[in-house]
């Protein structure tokens, strides 16, 4: 048993932290206020390797282990939740399926541009107006074979990155009982990307509905195995959950640091509020729970890298880390008092940002369902 990161992982953390502290964190409030995606920092992420975390070096990626990838997302989230969600979704939901299931030609076609920042980002569309937690029963978007083409009709909802992507991966029904993934370039005729959704937080991460109106794609745009789309989705989501856990830890860490500093500066009843046990307990709980959450995320990442089954570990890490993050961000506002409720202070944004984490990539209820299935053996 060894709780130390490797020196390589330590270096990754140091340099990503430095990058985020200089290029991203100072802009986070403005990104939220303007509700605009922040390309200037993201463009610089390409050469660093942050846009191809699990893409092999042969295609221009960084091919880091899952713990390093988690560290990267955690650090980006420490700086800006919006940007972290976009980068997490790009790596975990957009590129991972191509790396895992793509043909050599598909990898050659898409990975070099998407993993290096020469192109835009990528997006995965599974959710629909009537299908979220229940994709199996709910997906209505069809891809029908006509000659040597797929013809897509239907609507997807809540695609992170759709309006800032070159490529979307779409989960479509390809017969009445099964689904498949289809690669859809965003400039395909018949694809209409809706305006950015108005959201409670993560305002600098565009989320869009996308409609497909006789959108035609060559048959070779099938990703992976025809009819195995749902299984492929579940595999991708297992890994994606580790990333959302890491993102939640990063937001919690940032809120905790703000609260820790504020508690030592703000004075009441003749001294800093940090002297009150009520405040100390909130800080102590935050430090403890963040540590536990981070360990669970690394543990799930480690299981994945060891090639062990990690579905339960990922579900546990995501469930715990996202709920910890919400609590820590909530208490960070509490410690700030009235100022915490003001958008002049950082913690208010962090609370709004982290609120998604118990919903996206599988709600807390769905994580508990997965964990229960494992422990009950059903």
């Amino acid at each position, binding site marked *: 048993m060894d709780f130390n990161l490797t020196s*390589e992982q330590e270096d*990754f953390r*140091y*340099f990503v932290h430095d990058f985020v502290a200089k290029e991203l964190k100072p802009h986070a409030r403005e990104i939220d206020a303007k509700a605009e995606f922040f390309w200037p920092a993201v463009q610089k992420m390409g050469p660093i*390797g942050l846009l191809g975390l699990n893409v092999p070096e042969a295609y221009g990626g960084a091919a880091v282990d899952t713990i390093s990838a988690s560290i990267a997302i955690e650090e980006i989230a420490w700086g800006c939740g919006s940007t972290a969600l976009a980068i997490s979704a790009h790596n975990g939901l957009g590129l991972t399926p191509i790396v895992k299931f793509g043909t050599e030609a598909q990898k050659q076609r898409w990975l070099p541009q998407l993993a290096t920042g020469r192109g835009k980002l990528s997006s995965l569309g599974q959710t629909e107006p009537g299908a979220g937690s229940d994709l199996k029963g709910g997906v209505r978007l069809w891809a029908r074979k006509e000659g040597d083409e797929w013809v897509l009709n239907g609507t997807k909802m809540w695609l992170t990155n759709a309006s800032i992507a070159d490529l979307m991966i779409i989960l479509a029904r390809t017969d009445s009982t099964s689904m498949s993934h289809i690669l859809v370039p965003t400039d395909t005729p018949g694809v209409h990307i809706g305006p950015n959704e108005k959201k409670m937080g993560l305002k600098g991460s565009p989320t869009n509905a996308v409609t497909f109106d006789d959108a035609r794609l060559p048959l070779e745009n099938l990703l992976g195995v025809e009819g195995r789309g749902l299984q492929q989705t579940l595999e991708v989501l297992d890994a994606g959950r580790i990333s959302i856990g890491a993102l939640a830890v990063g937001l919690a860490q940032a809120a905790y640091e703000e609260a820790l500093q504020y508690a030592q500066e703000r004075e009441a009843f003749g001294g800093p509020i940090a002297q009150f046990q009520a405040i100390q307990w909130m800080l102590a709980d935050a430090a403890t729970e963040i540590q536990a959450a981070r360990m669970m995320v690394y543990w799930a990442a480690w299981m994945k890298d060891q090639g062990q089954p990690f579905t339960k570990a990922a579900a546990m890490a995501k469930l715990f880390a996202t709920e910890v993050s919400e609590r820590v961000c909530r208490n960070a506002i509490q410690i700030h008092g009235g100022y915490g409720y003001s958008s002049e202070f950082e913690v208010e944004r962090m609370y709004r940002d982290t609120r998604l984490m118990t919903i996206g990539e599988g709600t807390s209820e769905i994580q508990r369902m997965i964990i229960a299935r494992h422990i009950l053996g059903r």
Partner: protein
Amino acid sequence: MKVVVCTKQTPSTTATFTVNNGVVSWDDPGGKPNVVNPWDEYAIEEAIRLKENHGAEAAIALTAGGESADDVLKTALAMGCTEAIRVEDAGFAGSGSRGTANILAAAIKKTGADIAFFGKQAIDGDTGLTPVMAARALGWTPLTYVSAIKSVSDDSITVERQIETGTQTVTAPLPVVISVVKEINEPRYPSFMGIRKASRATIPVWSAADLDIEGAYGPGSAKVDWSEITQPPSRDTVVEFISGDSAEEIAAALATKLFEEKVI
């Protein structure tokens, strides 16, 4: 064309210092207490660019320092330097600027480079002497405070220098020593691929026996004696909020204050 870049490990800009009985120590909780001298990041970037864009056959990072200085060489490798060399010898201790320059000059010569980059100055010693003293030891042309490389070939280089009275364009035959200012480029961040390569690299250490050092170095060679080191008194700062009815009024009040305090 072969390029070497000299880089020094210095305390980080956010480190806090304590002086105890003339001994300086520092720490940077949450960060790294020692980093690449910030000015040297620009020198490293420029060396890598000569390799990437102008066909230099190598961009070699060089430092004189103890084992912990491997860290700065690893950063240089992670950014894109092709090799790294550390020079260290028990006999180097106590070298002043001239001794350090003599040691670096011998190492530069051994690499076979014909362009040697330096930062403008080190943020700890802060003399800016090392580049010119190394140039003197090598007998190469010193081009200091360089803000742009206009053109470079196998036998000459044209640079822009930033001097107090303006900008000067200079052409010199190679070999040259160049010290850079931060206007010259925007240093890149190390990449994951580079960090991986650097963490697996073994860095050769050259000792006095490996070098043909001309001139004085080591104990007793320094021309400057650090006779006393003391902690500067802490400054009392007062925060004052300036208020007013309009931006103009606030700005005027601020300007008056700044004049009164002789800040402007």
